[in-house]
């Protein structure tokens, strides 16, 4: 069980957090790190997108083998919705920047929603990985 989770954590979670980590590090090094700077960057959304997309890919073989199954369908739909919606949120951030030059109130709310979406879908992806690792172990 542990090996799959370690692999997932290393190659998916850490790599997905890399852009955000680098941004924060560079901001800290240049002394420009503020919450406002974080609100203006879409890295948290990339994290949610990557977490969801990877788990969707990992679930593919299971879904093909099992066929119609309600819990799997709910997990699959939620991950798909999470990945699509992360992209939509990124699009809205880009649109806001293009059209209005970046509205502070919108970006503040967007950051809160992005963090919420990222945390929820991280937990969901973790559950999916535990389920897959149990199957792998039993096989």
């Amino acid at each position, binding site marked *: 069980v542990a090996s799959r989770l370690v692999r997932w954590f290393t190659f998916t979670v850490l790599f997905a957090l890399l852009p955000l980590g680098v941004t924060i590090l560079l901001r800290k090094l240049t002394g420009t790190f503020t919450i406002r700077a974080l609100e203006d960057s879409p890295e948290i959304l990339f994290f949610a997108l990557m977490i969801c997309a990877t788990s969707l890919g990992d679930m593919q073989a299971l879904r093909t083998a*099992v066929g119609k199954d309600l819990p799997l369908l709910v997990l699959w*739909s939620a991950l798909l919705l999470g990945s699509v919606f992360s992209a939509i949120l990124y699009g*809205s951030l880009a*649109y806001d920047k293009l059209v209005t030059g970046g509205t502070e109130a919108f970006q503040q709310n967007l950051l809160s929603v*992005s963090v919420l979406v990222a945390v929820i879908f991280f937990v969901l992806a973790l*559950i999916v990985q535990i389920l897959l690792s149990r199957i792998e172990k039993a096989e």
Partner: protein
Amino acid sequence: MLEIVLWIGLGVAGFGVIAIGVGVYALVSRREREYITHFREARAHQLRVKERLRRERHDS
């Protein structure tokens, strides 16, 4: 208009929470046993098909 996107985002997060509940249920009820049976059946079927194709090629 962009505020609507945020509200939909909250909806998606809500669905994510429901999915977490479903995932926890799947883990607690040890549903993977059922999935493993499906996996084995699928693999056995695949092997049967491969074997049949191999035999057909051999016969022709």
